[in-house]
């Protein structure tokens, strides 16, 4: 081994705590890169494999009743490769272990066996036999939630007829990777199930024998999606077609996409923060090491070593630190990525997990990690190796302090000398102070970016379940009903009040921008579910015209006063021009609202309802559930308390883990920066501090000078970090915004406090570690070393 390399190893041994602190920060960046990428790509790969193997549809459409013969015509549309027609509807389920009714989405499969598209993968048991009225295949998560195995039974009300079903098997489907029921915001496997039943059985139950009401198609690669959609819509329109929608608007797929986007954002945004900080740390530590070894560098040059050799020696040190960080990051990243993909695959109900590792991400993360360390080293090396040997071997001139702007402040403050030393040090190295401050600030902002999610969720719950939706339950009717049905509903046991909502599928068009949504007709005096603007905190009562959710208005570039085209999809040739009279802020979905009476006038028919919002007497809940389980007109019941519960449960599950991990990461950055700064300051100022000890300053007083600067910088960094954190949170909110939901930008005082606290504690802890070194400082030895 060459002597220089031996020196390298000794340097590393001497600097191991600092090296490890840098490696750890670097490792986090690499880890998150590898982890998020691994998880994201694995999930994408798993999804794509599942979609392809199980022939997930490209376009979806519904009708009220289309004859089976239409399938052949659909197939003849240019660009369509496969067609699957089926019966799809909702039904109330009566499960023995629940008093309240559950909701099932009932799907038919053909007599020939598996459907042509959206093929469920049987995980247990078998498909039901055609003609067997009492047999059903259920989705695995529903079965798991109730402990069902093949042979178990539960009750179902199909189009008003109650019957018992025997489970023949369980399955997972590409359509229900994210299984979310109607009127829900989170999956709830106990209360929402998928039921596959034989076509003939369902045809008989729903009066759709020889007909279908749902169609999926698979497109050829070169298909013109718009043309196919138009052709399909034309074919279905006479049969109550409401317009085809592409895969990206399919609920399960859309949620999965949103999640994958979040993972990708995480992979892109977080690692650079850590890489930049580690580059800064390498620069700081190496810069100091090199400054201390100035004379040795001069000597090496005098002995005939070339600049390149000397530079390489120090860069190698940085690269060793970099390699350590990269390998730690790789190891943990691979493990965490696998774990994360597994968690996701369980949450999302994939039948298997295709865990893929792309060598490219390892190469890229290694390159990024080593580059960060290398760049940090190069600028530090450049400062010294350029000096001539004679100059390098002489001790550096004492640092020049001059009176600067800060001195006006100092004069005004008239601090004691130790405080003056702190202020002058900051004034002398403003860049270093600024970078240190920024580094510490980053740790606070990482914390905020992680924690504000919980504040956002609180706000979201408050707005969605306290301000907007105040009903206890939503009853979904199988078909449109006259408004008089509300009286029947109100007469059900335990119902305190009932209000109707009339939902109509529409195509909303403004210029060339168009969206397929549902418009809700409401009575202006309804109080159980309100149209609310979260931004202005005002109720928006749609007296006339149409009120759009803000995000919907953004999508079609409409604002208040504009006129938009509303095409009612269930009514032939029903296009109307409506004025946008208000905007509603909301976090879920893209809603549009009209006065029910205005809607009735527009459509020239009496007011209808498709769902009812209920206020329930909890004492008589059970009676209500029993009567709903047998009510023929009811296709679904959503209990808002449970929606809220499953939402908070899901958040709580993630909460503990996320908070712990992010507090750890934030503390790691804070400790990495503060500890390294303090160590470097200590080595730079050992002589000065020893002099003060000799002059009779106590350890506490000397520590004040060294650590006071860091505490001052930390104190400046915390508010800065809180501001950056809020900006970061804003950027995240913007990147998470989707058609399905948006996340409010709310950062609570508690979150600010927690972030500030973690950073402060991390600073104090690193300061205390360094303080121990001050206590052990050998005064005589320090004074003997020449500056």
């Amino acid at each position: 081994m060459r002597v220089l390399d031996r020196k390298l190893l000794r340097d590393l041994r001497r600097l191991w705590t600092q090296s490890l602190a840098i490696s750890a920060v670097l490792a986090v960046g690499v880890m998150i890169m590898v982890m998020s990428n691994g998880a994201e790509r694995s999930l994408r790969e798993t999804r794509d494999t599942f979609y392809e193997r199980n022939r997930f549809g490209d376009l979806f459409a519904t009708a009220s009743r289309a004859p089976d013969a239409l399938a052949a015509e659909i197939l003849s549309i240019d660009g369509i490769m496969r067609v699957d027609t089926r019966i799809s509807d909702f039904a109330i389920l009566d499960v023995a272990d629940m008093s309240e009714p559950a909701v099932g989405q009932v799907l038919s499969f053909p007599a020939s066996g598996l459907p042509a598209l959206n093929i469920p993968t049987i995980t247990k048991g078998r498909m039901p036999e055609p003609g067997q009225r009492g047999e059903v295949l259920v989705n695995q998560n529903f079965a798991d939630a109730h402990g069902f195995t093949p042979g178990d039974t539960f009750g179902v009300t199909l189009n008003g007829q109650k019957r018992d079903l025997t489970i023949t098997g369980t399955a997972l489907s590409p359509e229900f990777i994210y299984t979310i029921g109607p009127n829900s915001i989170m999956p709830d496997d106990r209360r929402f199930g998928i039921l596959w039943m034989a076509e003939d059985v369902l045809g008989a139950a729903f009066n759709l024998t020889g007909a279908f009401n749902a169609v999926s198609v698979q497109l050829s690669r070169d298909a013109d999606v718009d043309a196919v959609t138009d052709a399909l819509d034309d074919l279905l329109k006479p049969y109550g077609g409401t317009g085809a929608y592409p895969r990206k608007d399919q609920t399960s797929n859309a949620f999965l996409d949103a999640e994958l986007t979040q993972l990708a954002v995480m992979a892109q945004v977080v690692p650079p923060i850590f890489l930049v900080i580690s580059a800064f740390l390498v620069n700081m530590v190496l810069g100091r090491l090199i400054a201390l070894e100035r004379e040795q560098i001069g000597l090496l040059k005098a002995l005939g070593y070339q600049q390149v050799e000397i530079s390489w020696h120090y860069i190698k040190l940085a690269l060793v630190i970099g390699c350590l960080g990269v390998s730690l990051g790789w190891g943990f990243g691979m493990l965490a990525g696998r774990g994360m993909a597994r968690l996701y695959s369980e949450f999302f109900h994939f039948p298997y997990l295709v865990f893929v590792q792309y060598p490219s991400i390892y190469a890229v993360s290694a390159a990024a990690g080593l580059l960060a360390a290398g760049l940090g080293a190069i600028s530090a090396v450049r400062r010294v190796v350029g000096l001539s040997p004679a100059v390098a071997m002489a001790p550096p001139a004492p640092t020049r302090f001059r009176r600067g702007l800060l001195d006006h402040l100092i004069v005004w403050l008239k601090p004691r000398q130790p405080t003056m030393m702190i202020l002058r040090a900051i004034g002398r190295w403003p860049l270093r102070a600024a970078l240190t401050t920024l580094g510490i600030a980053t740790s606070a902002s990482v914390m905020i970016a992680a924690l504000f999610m919980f504040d956002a969720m609180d706000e979201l719950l408050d707005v969605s379940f306290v301000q907007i939706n105040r009903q206890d339950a939503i009853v979904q009717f199988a078909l449109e009903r006259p408004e008089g049905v509300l009286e029947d509903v109100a007469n059900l046991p335990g119902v305190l009040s009932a209000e109707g909502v009339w939902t109509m599928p529409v195509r909303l068009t403004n210029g060339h921008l168009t969206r397929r949504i549902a418009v809700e007709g409401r009575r202006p005096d309804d109080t159980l579910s309100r149209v609310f603007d979260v931004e202005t905190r005002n109720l928006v009562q749609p007296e006339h015209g149409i009120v759009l959710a803000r995000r919907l208005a953004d999508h079609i570039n409409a604002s208040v006063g504009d006129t938009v085209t509303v095409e009612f999809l269930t009514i032939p040739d029903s296009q109307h021009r409506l004025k946008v009279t208000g905007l509603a802020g909301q976090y879920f979905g893209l809603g549009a609202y009209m006065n029910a009476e205005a809607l009735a006038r527009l459509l020239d028919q009496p007011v209808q309802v498709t769902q009812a919002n209920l206020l329930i007497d909890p004492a008589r809940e059970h009676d209500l559930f029993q009567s709903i389980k047998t009510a023929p007109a009811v296709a679904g019941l959503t209990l808002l308390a449970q929606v809220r519960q499953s939402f908070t449960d899901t958040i709580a599950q993630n909460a503990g883990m996320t908070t712990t991990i992010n507090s750890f990461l934030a503390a790691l950055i804070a400790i990495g920066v503060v500890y390294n700064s303090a160590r470097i300051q200590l080595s730079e100022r050992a002589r000065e501090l020893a002099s003060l000890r000799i002059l009779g300053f106590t350890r506490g007083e000397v520590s004040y000078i060294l650590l006071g600067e860091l505490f001052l910088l930390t104190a400046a960094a915390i508010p800065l970090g809180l501001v950056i954190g809020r900006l970061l949170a804003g950027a995240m909110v913007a990147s998470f915004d989707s058609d399905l939901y948006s996340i409010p930008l709310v950062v609570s005082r508690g979150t600010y406090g927690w972030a500030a606290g973690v950073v402060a504690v991390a600073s104090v802890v690193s300061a205390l570690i360094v303080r121990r070194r001050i206590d052990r400082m050998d005064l005589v030895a320090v004074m003997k070393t020449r500056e």
Partner: protein
Amino acid sequence: MGSDNSDASRTPIYRMQDLTKTYRTEAVDVHALRGVTAEVPAGEIIVLLGASGSGKSTLLNILGGLDTATSGKAWFRDEELTAKSDRDLTRYRRDHVGFVFQFYNLVPSLTARENVALVTEISSDPMTPEEALERVGLGHRMDHFPAEMSGGEQQRVAIARAIAKRPEVLLCDEPTGALDSKTGVQVLEALHKINAELGTSTLVITHNAGIQAMAHRVVFFADGDISEIRENAKRIEPTEIVW
């Protein structure tokens, strides 16, 4: 410093009894002090001479409360230094001792005045920084930073800083070691003046034998012990010193 106690009119400022200091290393024990017994009369300038490693710095460090003895005892007036805790030693340095080192050890971020104020702020009865700097002849350089001053000026700031608290003793370890003769003389003049005006006991370690001529007493060190003590019958002014 004397092994006898002939001058009873003067209470000694330091007394040492069998003072030893041994540095243990992995290979060998280094005996820096081998049982020094002596007394230091108050109010004098005493020059300590001897080869490197003869023990003078070790003794000065122990007397200054910077280092602890391995065995034996040392007293500052009636206080036993060898029995003091680290905290008490800090207190002792703060209240009674002024140090001057070869490499000045000024705080580069503070001006001359502020470097002196560093000490006056924590002392009970200090002179003003201005007065201390006037005494070393730097009244006109008070607002300069160390980097803006010559070595001799910096060392005189260090002396001003050391004397500003009106210490009983001034311990100087090679105060002129880094200086040329002209500036060195200025520094010695400052020490001489302080001793004459304030009666501060001053112990000066030097390798420059010429300096002994300005001392009341010269102590020779060899091999970890005092080999000879010589009292100067006639002292000369620092300006007359030649080296």
